[in-house]
């Protein structure tokens, strides 16, 4: 534990032998394709599949009439049709599916399906959608409100000597994992189906797939195929039910692989948000109150919007101690693309708002932005806006001190514009900005958040060997490495195998909310401890003195454990008070930028990050999470936005939706703190999300410091930076 053990899947991944979900193949396999709505909102009047069925090589063409079970699915609310019934509510909504002997044949057949639509005016403005009398985003709705989370703490009428207010906006970000949605469904002789798929939570997929197929859950068996990144985009179903329907209908294995364009339509995105904040402080910079209103555009279906809304609300003032808070956060239905989970999950949008405000307040007070943050930094024993007392380390001030003291940028001096040689330094100014973030770890608000682990110890080939079996999704983060490290440490054996994740073992919960090492790691540790106790009872001597080979003989010891973190509690629906979260995690960023003020071009010169991880289970993997998360935050700050106009996505490709390249990323200095959380296994703290949250506002703070521009919207566009608007 605590060493940078090598990934067990690493050798296969560097040699090209690792089987991702899009690499699967079966004898006699067919290819699936999906026909999607071209309209953000329309009535479906008629679907004529005859042209598609007539195409040679086509084996099945299915519509909503062919869905064997529940016509709808969803993570929290069953509102999303498996295939459109009489209405489409967003561009890209699946309407029909095809199986054919070649992917091109399947696509051509889908194009020959004739759908008669009656286009309706789409609801595209989330704030307007909340007003009384607003058009509804679907005929199944009686209101466009998904959820409202109010937060009321202290005196709602508190006043302050210095007040700053601001309006902020966050664009729609895409997870943009590289491995597209894909999987292989194989019909089974027992009438069930085996699905090999890239997902974040096998059991919640199975629950929804079985219901839609009208099958008992034991007949729907899911196995995790290689996952090419996730970042939240695989929490919702994509091709799962469709591939199974086609396989059960044709009695042949069916593979579905989304193209990049289809992937942009095939998964939920990060909620775009509008945020209004008012901060009141004393003249010496002590925060007196925060009032805020956040509107999150959830798009056409609920997905995980209710939980995203709660996160934005409960974490909405940041890692600061503030006695008085009045905050209202809304998630709203529109006919824009559905939004749901993405790394940072509601905390990202809020952080851009509250950290922009902290800089604005520092400016109004004439105080250094870091000093203002230090003066108000949350620490152990302080209360959150929900009334929850922060337990365990809360080293917000320490993280700020550390990034402030990080080494300055050195070496590489690529100017804005890079190799395009647009400047030799003239018009280039430098700026430095800071931000801190807070994130909850694990599922909140009373959710029964558990993981199951089955560990088996036996002698194999003359040496003791452990087999660790969970249903937890390895998505790239290195969970399989850490689970192996836990088993080696707890059992004292070298030989540990991580079994393929599948539904033949109990649920491990979701690979999200930075929770898997905490919860499934906790379950594996508990299973190992149970095995150890059995061994000790059998031997009567301490573990280090045991000869496992002698003691085990031909026996195997197997333990299956369901492990839970401490319970959390719901929020009071009127006041937002409640101990809703199990653990908080913190990160801080310092960013240095160079800006070409004549062209609006930006080069991030260096990013310094400090993060408390409780215990660095695998330091190389921890730093990898922090650097990768920081990069996604840079993307949101400077380039990543799904452009939606009138409900239509304008840039569904990697040509038009830009993610950071190696030329966009600066050197990153990472400082890892290990302050143990007394309640968590090994003292660890979730790692994956905090770095994504604060890197965005830190970059924008640096841009403001360089340019003096207000920059209230991310991603920041060149025109936002220019000293004067060239069009005026």
């Amino acid at each position, binding site marked *: 534990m605590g060493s940078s053990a090598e990934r067990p899947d690493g050798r296969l991944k560097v040699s090209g032998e690792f089987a991702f979900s899009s690499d699967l193949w079966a004898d006699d396999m067919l290819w699936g394709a999906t026909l999607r709505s071209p309209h953000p909102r329309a009535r479906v009047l008629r679907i004529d599949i005859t042209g598609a069925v007539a195409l040679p090589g086509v084996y099945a063409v299915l519509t909503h009439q062919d869905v064997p079970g529940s016509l709808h699915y969803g993570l929290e609310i069953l509102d999303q049709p498996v295939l459109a019934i009489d209405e489409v509510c967003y561009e890209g909504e699946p309407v029909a599916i095809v199986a054919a002997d070649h992917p091109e044949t399947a696509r051509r057949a889908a194009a020959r399906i004739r759908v008669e639509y009656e286009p309706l005016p789409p609801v595209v403005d989330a704030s307007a959608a909340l007003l009384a009398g607003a058009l509804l985003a679907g005929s199944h709705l009686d209101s466009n409100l998904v959820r409202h989370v109010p937060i009321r703490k202290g005196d709602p009428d508190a006043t302050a000597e210095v007040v700053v207010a601001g309006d902020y906006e966050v664009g729609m970000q895409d997870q943009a994992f590289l491995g597209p949605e894909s999987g292989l469904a194989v019909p089974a002789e027992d009438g069930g189906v085996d699905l090999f798929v890239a997902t974040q939570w096998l059991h919640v997929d199975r629950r929804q797939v079985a219901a839609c197929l009208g099958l008992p859950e034991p007949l729907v068996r899911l196995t995790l195929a290689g996952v090419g990144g996730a970042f939240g985009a695989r929490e919702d179903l994509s091709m799962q039910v469709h591939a199974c329907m086609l396989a059960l209908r044709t009695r042949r294995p069916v593979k579905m692989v989304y193209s990049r364009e289809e992937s942009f339509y095939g998964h939920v995105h990060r909620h775009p948000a509008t945020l209004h904040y008012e901060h009141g402080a004393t003249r010496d910079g002590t925060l007196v109150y925060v009032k805020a209103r956040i509107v999150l555009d959830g798009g056409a279906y609920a997905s995980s919007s209710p939980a995203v809304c709660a996160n934005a609300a409960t974490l909405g003032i940041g890692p600061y101690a503030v006695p008085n808070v009045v905050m209202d956060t809304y998630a709203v239905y529109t006919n824009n693309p559905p939004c749901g989970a993405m790394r940072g999950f509601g905390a990202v949008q809020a952080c851009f708002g509250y950290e922009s405000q902290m800089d604005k307040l520092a400016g109004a007070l004439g105080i250094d932005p870091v000093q203002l943050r230090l003066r108000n930094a949350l620490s152990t024993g302080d209360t959150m806006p929900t009334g929850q007392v922060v337990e365990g380390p809360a080293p917000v001030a320490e993280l700020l001190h550390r990034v402030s003291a990080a080494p300055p940028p050195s070496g590489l001096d690529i100017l804005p514009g890079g190799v395009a040689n647009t400047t030799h330094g003239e018009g280039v100014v430098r700026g430095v900005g800071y931000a801190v973030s807070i994130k909850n770890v694990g599922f909140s608000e009373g959710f029964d958040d558990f993981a199951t682990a089955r560990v088996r110890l036996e002698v194999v080939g003359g040496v003791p060997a452990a087999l660790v079996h969970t249903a937890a999704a390895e998505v*790239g983060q290195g969970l399989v490495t850490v689970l192996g490290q836990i088993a080696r440490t707890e059992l004292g054996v070298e030989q540990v195998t991580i079994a393929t994740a599948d539904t033949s073992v109990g649920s491990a919960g979701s690979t999200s909310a930075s929770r898997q090492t905490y919860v499934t790691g906790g379950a594996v540790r508990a299973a190992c401890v149970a095995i150890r106790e059995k061994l000790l009872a059998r031997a009567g001597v301490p573990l280090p003195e045991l000869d496992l080979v002698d003691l085990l003989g031909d026996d195997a010891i197997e333990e299956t454990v369901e492990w839970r973190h401490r319970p959390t509690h719901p929020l009071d629906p009127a006041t937002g008070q409640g101990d809703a979260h199990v653990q908080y995690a913190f990160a801080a960023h310092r960013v240095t930028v160079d800006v070409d003020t004549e062209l609006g071009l930006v080069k991030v010169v260096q990013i310094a990050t400090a993060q408390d991880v409780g215990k660095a289970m695998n330091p190389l993997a921890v730093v990898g999470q922090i650097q990768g998360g920081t990069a996604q935050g840079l993307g949101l700050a400077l380039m990543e936005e799904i452009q939606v106009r009138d409900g239509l996505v304008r840039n569904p490709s990697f040509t038009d939706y830009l993610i950071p390249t*190696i030329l966009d990323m600066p050197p990153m200095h990472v400082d890892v703190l290990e302050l143990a959380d007394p309640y968590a296994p090994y003292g660890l703290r979730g790692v994956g999300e905090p770095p994504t949250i604060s890197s965005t506002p830190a970059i924008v703070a640096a841009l403001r410091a360089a340019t003096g521009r207000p920059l209230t919207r991310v991603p920041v566009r060149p025109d936002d930076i220019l000293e004067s608007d060239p069009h005026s």
Partner: protein
Amino acid sequence: MRVTCTVNGEPREADDVWPGESLLYVLRERLGLPGTKNACEQGECGSCTVYLDGEPVCACLVAAGQAQDRSVVTIEGLPGDRVQRAFLEAGAVQCGFCTPGLVVAVHDLLARVPHPDDREIREALAGNLCRCTGYETILDAVRLAAS
């Protein structure tokens, strides 16, 4: 149509190829070589980088017929494991979807420039997207492989 080419040193043949198929599709779906990845089909991400007659190309942008009578080397056929080993040791592999394309690109870079500086590494790998790492460990891997 039939496509005949040399893949990883072996003569290979694919029958019934639809003329719209890419080299990437033929490698992955007809020749049993799925190590080369498909992530964008637009030549933007570099996940499908292979050698075509010794030049690194995006296999998604090469029509299958263009590979006729030519030599293709994929991740499965790369000699030696210096670059692969460096990726593992540096922690440059997370989900691994970009890794085969990056390994080919780094292999090509080090063949041309045995000791690249950071600027040369960044320019050489600017066509390979990675969503997991933020690229720091990929730079580490290249430095390690070049040392």
